[in-house]
């Protein structure tokens, strides 16, 4: 701590004025700052249920009405601050073994233009006394309602089930025994939304050919000039033919890029697009990225990623 002799002498003098200030000065001298320790709430109160509705609104963050069910499992009453991460906490008093349901609003960010692809990030992480809960949430049941006329999501980062609510397309997030984090959903108010399911055969990748299938369904209006694009790591895969290009960045960057133009895809129609890559070696323990579709550079579809497991 006091390895610097000049600093040590200075500290001796300054200690009369306060050791804390002295230590802070040394930290500043080294350009070091305190890093807040990540903590999880380990107390007796659990979040047992998160339910409610998130309504997506073009051009602005979504409107949310969520309920959070709390349960005090302890043998004494607890006063606890509850919020979704990033918002001001409500303080509640919970008696022994008491439960309570609160209405809370999550923080959300929006990106994209009102007329094109747009994304919302909704932080669904509850915090108890400022920290995410250490116990998993027993049950999550959220409904994400799309704007009127939007036929589907382009993508989400959590598994969702498609449904309808009052003539509007909606998705449900149903989870059990889970920690909740940030939900990302992407949609477009443009005329075309493509649902893309990506699969590979064989599912375990050993050196040799791998067939990639993109099952593309047009949930919107008639579409034309759809550019499908997928990328692969060229250290793992090779591709032959005019649809493949090896991207070499200016510096330390390589990527195998596959592209295909789809002339037309009518409303409600589905096509299966297949292409073949060659695995150079066994590929495990990683994800294959999502394929995407654009029309005139506007995003209209994103597939699932594929997680390649170990043996």
């Amino acid at each position, binding site marked *: 701590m006091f390895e610097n002799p000049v600093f040590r002498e200075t500290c001796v003098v300054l200690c009369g004025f306060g050791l804390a200030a002295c230590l802070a000065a040394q*930290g500043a001298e080294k*350009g*070091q*700052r*305190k*890093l*807040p*320790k*990540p903590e*999880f709430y*380990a107390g007796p109160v659990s979040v047992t249920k998160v339910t409610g509705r998130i309504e997506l609104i073009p051009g602005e963050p979504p409107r949310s009405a969520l309920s959070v069910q709390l349960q005090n499992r302890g043998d004494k009453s607890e006063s606890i601050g509850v919020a979704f*991460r990033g918002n001001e906490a409500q303080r509640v008093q919970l008696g022994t073994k008491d439960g309570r349901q609160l209405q809370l609003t999550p923080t959300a960010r929006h*990106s*994209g*233009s009102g007329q*094109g*692809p*747009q*994304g919302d990030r909704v932080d669904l*992480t509850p915090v108890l006394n400022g920290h*995410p809960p*250490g*116990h*998993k949430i027993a049950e999550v049941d959220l409904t994400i309602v799309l704007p009127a006329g939007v036929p589907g999501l382009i*993508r989400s*980062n959590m598994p969702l089930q498609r449904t309808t609510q009052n003539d509007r397309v909606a998705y449900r997030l149903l989870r059990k025994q*889970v*920690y*909740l*984090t*940030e939900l*990302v959903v*992407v949609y477009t108010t443009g005329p075309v939304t493509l649902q893309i399911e990506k699969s590979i055969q064989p599912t375990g990748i050993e050196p040799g050919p791998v067939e990639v299938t993109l099952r593309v369904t047009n949930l919107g209006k008639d579409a034309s000039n759809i550019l499908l694009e997928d990328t692969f*790591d060229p*250290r793992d895969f090779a591709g032959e033919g005019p649809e493949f290009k090896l*991207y070499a*960045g*200016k*510096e*330390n*960057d*390589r*990527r195998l890029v596959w592209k295909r133009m789809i002339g037309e895809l009518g409303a409600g129609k589905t096509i299966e697009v297949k292409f073949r890559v060659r695995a150079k*070696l066994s590929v*495990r*323990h*990683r*994800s294959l*990225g*999502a*394929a*995407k579709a*654009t029309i005139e*550079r*506007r*995003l209209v579809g*994103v*597939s699932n*990623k594929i997680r390649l497991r*170990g043996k």
Partner: protein
Amino acid sequence: MRKLGFRPTPRVCLVAATLLASTGCKSPSISVVSIHPDADKQLNFTAGRGNLSGGIDRMKIEVGGTIIADQAGDSATATGGPYLPYSNTRLTARAIANLSGGGTKSKSTWVYVANPKNVFAFTSPSGSNSGYPNSTAEQTGANLYRLDKAVVRTHAINAVMEYANAKGLTVFEVQNVADNLVAAVAWYVDEHMTWRSDTVNRTVFAANGWASYSPGWDFPQPADLTLTISGNLTNASPNDDFQGDCEDHAILRAALLRALGFAPWAIWDAIDNPVTHEYNVVLYEGAFRLMDYGEIDRWLTSHTWNSHRSHYGWNEDNGPRGVNATTHAYLQDHTDNYPGGKSDGNPWSFQIYYKVISP
């Protein structure tokens, strides 16, 4: 450049020969199951007759000044740990033989117990563009990891929670084990981030309020901006939550690990030679291993990518980022291979990060 190749000498034998310090010509033997123990794990100690002749009544094993085994006969075994109090320091172990004719003979060894957790201080950013790098010389860990930004810490916590979901663990089980922190961060970045070219990345930065971002060589994205704007849809069509090319993945992984209190000395950004790729070298299971696209498990065993001919390295304490003799020395001097100086004495090579070479 150094000659690279498989080392013919088994590392364990050399280490054992180098480290065992005898208290006399005749002594019992003592061995530890691992030569690069992780403080989060348990260790198995074995004491034996060694080259002692004559009767031995009892054999004891002393670890860290405490007798943990006292068994009749000429051998003893014991399991100890986790050794969190000995993190990043030497743990001494001793075999003590009680001779039948009276007196004792003993022999000591030591192991360096590595634990990179709980370093909750960071270097303040100093880049001349609001703390961000404004030139190649300013591409430091502090300016690129941006641990002062709450969003980096938020996503580090997300990594712990989502990895716990995926593996059926609790957040405490993830948070309390250094290897789980590494695995969680590798998993989280693989789950949420996808490659995108620097050409497009520049466009996205410009379209999302960061036209002024001009970091010099190779357009490395600061971790906080990867998390806040790389997935935005304003004038962009991302296919994942976050996007960037190889160094952006590596920077984000390092930043998230640091935000979880992982020690600066234990997480590096590495670049190969010739330069084709950037990724991480990280302390995992007590040894330095590669961390790259995908889960940590993918890169542990043997060399598979030419892009992993590691040669240059930088981190929060050693920089700036670059490919030069200095960054080569950083990697060679700090990650060969086990912390605590238990090198096998062979020259450093990029192969040391694989279990087939450095078990």
